[in-house]
């Protein structure tokens, strides 16, 4: 398990690189690796820009059926997401982005859980399974 701090644009690149290493080591196809790394990039940027910085924890996990996958847990102590449904809508953005970050990341992974309390922060957990 690898906890990475996200405090700068540099750190977003580091999260991508570590996500790539984990994805390759558990046998994800090149397309699935790319999808996971792209989702990680979106979510790490959200952690930095909207959450005011935080952490990404990357680990390799096993499913009940014995498949291995990469799980990444993003956590910040930022302002939280007041309206989750809106935040997950394609094209909606609270900032200057395209509004594809959260909704797009969800499409790129197999499991996606987001929890947010206004005022205490946001956690997003994603998993991509090997086939």
């Amino acid at each position, binding site marked *: 398990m690898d906890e990475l701090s996200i405090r700068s*644009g540099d750190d977003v690149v580091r999260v991508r690189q570590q996500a790539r290493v984990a994805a390759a080591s558990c046998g994800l196809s090149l397309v699935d690796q790319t999808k996971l790394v792209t989702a990680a990039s979106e979510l790490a*940027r959200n952690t930095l820009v909207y959450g005011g910085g935080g952490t990404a924890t990357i680990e390799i996990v096993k499913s009940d059926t014995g498949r291995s996958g990469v799980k990444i847990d993003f956590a910040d102590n930022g302002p939280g997401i007041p309206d989750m449904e809106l935040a997950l809508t394609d094209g909606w953005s609270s900032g200057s982005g395209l509004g594809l970050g959260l909704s797009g990341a969800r*499409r790129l992974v197999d499991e996606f859980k987001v929890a947010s309390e206004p005022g205490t922060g946001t956690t997003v957990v994603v998993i991509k399974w090997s086939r």
Partner: protein
Amino acid sequence: MDRVPIAKIGPTLFVSIQIDLEDESVVQLQEDLADQLTATGASGVIIDISAVEIVDSFIGRMLTMIGSISRLFDAETVIVGMRPAVAITLTELGLSLRGVRTALNAEKGLALLNGTA
């Protein structure tokens, strides 16, 4: 922050992205390209992304913006060399890079700019 170099060959500006792109590097590239377009009067921009492992929504938006900015300087932008996994992921993400032209490789991109494709 790493900077992406821009090379002028004839009327074309060539950009080959060989680094793991930070957001700041892409913003810098956009500014450097605008400067180079005014300084050189180039009529085309080729951006080779064959070494780029991921294009997320931010990088995608910046590439589209580079296309729009170039057009204001009467220059056409062609993105070349996109990896298959990147193309699949971009599409699933919901990004179409509308407004910029794409070509399989630098040679075809150049032919597109020269009107010989």
